[in-house]
């Protein structure tokens, strides 16, 4: 049974699962809680059994059933006695979202939307097993693993200002390419500059509503403006890196005598070689993902220039929502270095944190929350509530409520495409079946999810954007 602590805060008590070291906390409304599966709550409790966990095992309002951690799960571990777990990051390491703002108005873009989406679909490879347009060398691949978006910009994909508006400057320190297996390299090399499939997308949007004019102005957003959102991750490279290290960490669990309620929570004590190697490989995958989104941004700009030669596409921000990071947080009144895992959760630092780019440091970190296909996405700004309640974390999306199997039984891909088309949304995908499992109805309403983080001052609503055109795998 969950205990209501406050409006929008529910506690998973210590007794929910044997071995819990701390309670669980789910930041959610009563209405959204009704849609959370019992298995998700069990997964929050499972995470609470991990050694060295600080304060509580958390879940964001978009929480749903995952493997290991729930999706929407956040947990922090102390450096001394804590662990790192690939089950708290996921296979798609640094799956994330970036938003580009344009100086174009919807009225000018809407008449060209079909052509734009067709060109984006053609120029940015997507779909199962898609190969990129790039043929990078082994050396260039190492650069992507080590220097992420910084390498991509040097190689001609973008401008230095992109890096100044990206989480970690698009480059996570501590990457160890030598911990990336030959298999991960073979998967990653042809896929650099590809979108992938599933819920990943490239979307042309219109700013539909501004909630906070002051913040919107600083983020460069205004009503009626055209924005572009890119949602993708580290592709096969990240999947293989996680697969490889999950095996190593499963052995480490036995070696270090850790008792786990779920094998996917395989982990190693911080400071051990197994933990260090996983962190280094994970950082390499995170950098690959930032290089990937950077390259896709450059191709997106090329497409826009074809139709609007004078158009500018500037990066608003780029967030990771599957990653583990070393961060300082206030614990019992003192600052402590922690390893914060966010799996399907976005960093949402409040004002003043040094990790936030200069342009936004006095405001708080921009938080980009993608909707599902056909539903609004949101731009928020990290608040003090996040620093107090969630180790600076917010939700990452809408959260699934219907299984893929059920979605395919309920909706036809062509029918989904036609329904979106009637609402003026142009969608292109490799196959209509891919659209059925991503139908807007299979997700929680994104506005309710975002309202929860807004009310808790985890992140304040700045703007809502709605889709005009979507390219999917």
């Amino acid at each position: 049974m969950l205990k209501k602590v406050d409006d929008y805060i529910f506690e998973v008590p210590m007794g929910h699962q044997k071995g819990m070291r701390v309670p669980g906390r789910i930041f959610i409304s009563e209405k959204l809680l009704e849609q959370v599966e019992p298995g998700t709550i069990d997964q929050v409790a499972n995470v609470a059994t991990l050694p060295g966990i600080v304060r509580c095992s958390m879940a964001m309002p978009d929480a749903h059933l995952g493997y290991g951690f729930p999706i929407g799960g956040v947990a922090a571990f102390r450096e001394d006695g804590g662990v790192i777990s690939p089950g708290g990051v996921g296979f798609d390491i640094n799956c994330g979202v970036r938003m580009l703002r344009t100086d174009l108005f919807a009225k000018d873009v809407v008449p060209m939307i079909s052509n734009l989406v067709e060109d984006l679909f053609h120029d940015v490879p997507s779909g199962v097993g898609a190969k990129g347009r790039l043929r990078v060398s082994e050396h260039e691949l190492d650069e992507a693993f080590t220097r992420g978006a910084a390498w991509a910009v040097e190689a001609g994909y973008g401008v230095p200002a992109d890096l100044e508006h990206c989480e970690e400057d698009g480059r996570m320190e501590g990457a160890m390419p030598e911990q990336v297996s030959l298999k991960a390299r073979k998967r990653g090399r042809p896929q650099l500059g590809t979108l992938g499939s599933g819920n990943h997308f490239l979307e042309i949007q219109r700013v539909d509503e501004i909630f906070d004019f002051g913040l919107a102005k600083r983020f460069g957003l205004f009503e009626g403006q055209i924005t572009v959102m890119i949602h993708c991750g580290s592709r096969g490279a990240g999947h293989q890196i996680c697969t490889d290290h999950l095996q190593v960490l499963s052995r480490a669990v036995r070696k270090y005598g850790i008792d786990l309620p779920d094998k996917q929570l395989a982990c190693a004590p911080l400071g051990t070689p197994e933990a260090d190697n996983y962190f280094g490989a994970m950082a390499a995958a995170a950098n690959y993902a930032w290089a990937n989104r950077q390259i896709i941004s450059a191709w997106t700009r090329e497409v826009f220039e074809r139709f609007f030669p004078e158009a500018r596409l500037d990066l608003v921000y780029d967030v990771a929502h599957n990653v583990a990071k070393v961060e300082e947080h206030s614990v019992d009144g003192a600052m402590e270095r922690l390893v914060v895992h966010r799996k399907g959760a976005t960093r949402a630092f409040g004002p003043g944190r040094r990790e936030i780019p200069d342009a936004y440091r006095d405001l708080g970190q921009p938080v980009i929350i993608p909707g599902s296909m056909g539903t609004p996405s949101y731009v928020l700004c990290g608040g003090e509530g996040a620093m107090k309640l969630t180790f600076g974390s917010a939700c990452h999306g809408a959260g699934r409520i219907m299984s893929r199997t059920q979605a395919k039984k309920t909706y036809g891909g062509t029918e989904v495409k036609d329904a979106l088309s009637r609402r003026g949304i142009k969608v292109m995908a490799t196959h209509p079946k891919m659209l059925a499992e991503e139908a807007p109805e299979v997700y929680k309403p994104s506005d309710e999810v975002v309202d929860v983080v807004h009310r808790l001052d985890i992140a304040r609503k700045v703007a809502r954007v709605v889709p005009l055109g979507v390219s999917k795998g």
Partner: protein
Amino acid sequence: METIEYLEHTADVKFRARGRSLEEAFENAGLAMIGAMIDPATVRVEETWPVDIEAESLEGLLYDWLSEILYLFEVELAAFSKFQAEIEEVEGGWRLSGRVGGERVDAGRHLFETEVKAVTLHQFEIKKEAGEGGDEIWTAQVVLDV
């Protein structure tokens, strides 16, 4: 005996694959994983790829077998419909010598419904039970990240 059973999971794909031997359960698990992405009936067997792995445990062997098939799918850009595994207990663990049969992906004929990103260890299980006629049935339970 239902050889392949897909179970409900909100975000991912969960299946049970069964066989009258350990080998058959492994082979059906391979088929179930590929079947989550593409209809195996559309995949001809034109080529075969060897899979040779060793692991400390049976679970580790199944995890490696499925991960290896996924790896081959991505780097060879091939889909598979035939799976063969020979499994033996060796010093310090288990060994699998097998192969997968299929063909290179042809975008015109092969429709992918979803992309399997990886094999998870969540609720991962391989077990032997007594069947109805006193024979043994091996069941592999797997959750795939899609």
